[in-house]
């Protein structure tokens, strides 16, 4: 039972990280209909910025995060303004490929600035743990879950009650109608990229913290997070959290129980494919994910 709970706590924490990465994907998809391949690079650059502020400039940790968020929001807006805005109305896959080009530029740009070695982000959590019964829970894991919940809550309140949030929902639903109502689609697009940048800082710090450090391979998590996003439904923030948790727990449980016992039958490292199998099965039953909006098919 201890083992189960231990795996569960790790799985939930991993799921929270996936969810945070997914929220960045979802906000841009919801507003613009584009999967932003550069989200992984946003996470990397966000974490590098925190390194830069805490270690190179010697600022305290939490103000550094806020500063990094501000810088990433600006980067998000600039990227939207300079590049993505020119792609409005173009075929969606051309836009996706543009974000892929952006991924290449940002990753190698980050390398050129900060180098290739692992750098600390200066987080206060380190390797500290809390004992809950027999289960050792990492402090950073508690933060992962807490901040995941906070960001999701903020999303919910923002979309539900703020003027801009409602405008974003309206634009996502029908851009032309929204514009006709006096909503500035440009501001909505710019804002969604800014938010994606801010969320990426949170995900980046929580990934690089806890003794790991930041380097470009931090961005690889974006690919691992894709099934979570699909599972939850591309345009549903709540869905990406549920999807993240399902995928995170599935992955850790498979590594803990199935790999050692059945590794010779199902193949080594089955935990890598298990999330995709779960995803494919769920998608066969619910083609728009668990919480995604069903598209109306017209002739």
């Amino acid at each position, binding site marked *: 039972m201890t083992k189960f709970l231990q795996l569960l706590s790790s799985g939930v924490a991993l799921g929270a*990280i996936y969810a945070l990465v997914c929220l960045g994907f979802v906000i841009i998809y919801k507003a613009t209909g584009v999967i932003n391949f550069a989200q992984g690079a946003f996470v990397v650059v966000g974490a590098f910025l925190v390194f830069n502020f805490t270690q190179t400039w010697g600022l305290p940790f939490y103000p550094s995060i806020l500063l990094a968020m501000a810088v990433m929001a600006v980067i998000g807006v600039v990227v939207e303004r300079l590049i993505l805005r020119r792609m409005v109305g173009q075929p969606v896959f051309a836009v996706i490929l543009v974000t892929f080009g952006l991924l290449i530029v940002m990753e190698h740009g980050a390398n050129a600035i900060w180098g290739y070695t692992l750098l600390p982000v200066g987080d206060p959590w380190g390797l500290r743990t809390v004992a809950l019964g027999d289960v050792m829970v990492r402090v950073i894991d508690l933060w992962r879950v807490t901040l995941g919940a906070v960001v999701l809550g903020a999303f919910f309140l923002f979309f539900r009650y703020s003027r801009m949030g409602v405008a974003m929902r309206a634009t996502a639903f029908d851009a032309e109608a929204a514009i006709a109502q006096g909503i500035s689609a440009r501001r909505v697009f710019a804002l969604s990229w800014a938010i994606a940048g801010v969320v990426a800082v949170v995900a980046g710090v929580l990934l690089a913290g806890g*003794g790991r450090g930041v380097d470009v391979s931090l961005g690889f998590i974006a690919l691992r997070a894709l099934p979570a996003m699909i599972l939850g439904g591309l345009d549903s923030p709540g869905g990406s959290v549920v999807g993240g948790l399902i995928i995170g727990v599935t992955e850790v449980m498979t590594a803990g129980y199935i790999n050692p016992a059945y590794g010779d039958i199902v193949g080594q490292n089955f935990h890598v494919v298990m999330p995709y199998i779960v995803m494919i099965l769920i998608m066969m039953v619910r083609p728009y994910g668990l919480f995604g909006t069903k598209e109306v098919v017209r002739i």
Partner: protein
Amino acid sequence: MHQLTRSLPGRLLAAMFALALLAAACGNGDDGDDTTQATPSPDATPGEPEPVPGFDGTTIRVGVVTPLSGPAAIIGLPLTAGNRVWFEHVNAQGGIAGRYRIEMVEADNQYIADETITQYNRIKSDVVMFAQILGTPPTQAVLPLLRQDNIVASPASLDADWVREQNLLPIGGPYQIQMINGADYYLRTEGSTDSVICAMIQDDPYGAAGLEGLEFAAGELGFEITTVARYTAGDQDFTGQLSQLRDNNCEAVFLVAIPSDSVRIWGAAATLGYAPRWLGQSPTWLTAFAGGDLAPYLEENLWIIAEGAEWGDESVPGMAEMIEHQEQYAPDQEPDIYFVFGYAQARAVTAVLERAVELGDLSREGIIAAMNDLDRLEFEGLSGDYPWGPPEERDPPRESSIFGVNADRPAGLEGLEINFASDAARAFEFD
């Protein structure tokens, strides 16, 4: 006139002409000189090597194909810096055989096999040999081409497959040897044949090589490998694998991983309160780990199995010399075990080239002949000496060194036992 510009064939011909110009411009390379047509320097005396591709009579060029951008550059950059520092030292002494400057032609393969083939083809006619090809997959990718073109390359990879290859110049004790010596050291110090000994490996050729060594050691030294936990590069969480190791009460865990994974594996183990004796293969280590949050845990629980001496240990002649050269030619270089490897590798390349000049032939065939003519590759303690000769006579060094973690030392590593070879390692045969 309209007719010509308007007709499709006309435009196509024009386009093809432009393309041809472009290809011709590129084909000549950016160095502007085609080394195959270079004339011998006027003061060339009989008996000196003829100019050949990569050698214009005064300068010898060697190729380096390695990740210089992307995540793997963390290894490629210091390794290449090691190559360069040694060659700069050689040039300061007048060059190869005191006469010919040596120059590196660097190419970035981003650790991608296809890109390695392309880059190899790009620079192969500008170099006499390849001083470095980093990593097992890139080396595998170019090996058929090396055989076909009769070119020699030195792989920066400790895979045992390279030992008998006519076209390769490997250095250092293979991963198998590291594992065997590590097991031997553990049994002589903390452990016994009754200890629960386990492994955690990356599921690829690198992990398989390490596991092969450990299995051989188990048979030779009489212990059992209780559990082998596996993971793949890029895994985000290791709780499953670690709880598997803990459930089986593993007291010693041999880890085969790369730094971006090993740091998270140890981090997760530390927070789970799981503290076996970790024995990590040399590529698990980065100097940065000694200064991070993990340092206390690693000082307590980790040994690194590598080669050669502690960084800055002046009692080892090769190391003393290396530090001197590094301070002169690359004063900003941080202590780094990959730098040491690159430096030692360049020494081996120089030995081959010196012999080739002695024999008066820097052609591809000449270099293979010169390489087969060497009796021994010597590293003055930076790496185990390598009894050399034609492929069937080559006998990889069986020495390894065990390091403990100590943040006060330059590379974060403190030598516990340096350059020893266990009987079990000596018994390991390469075929």
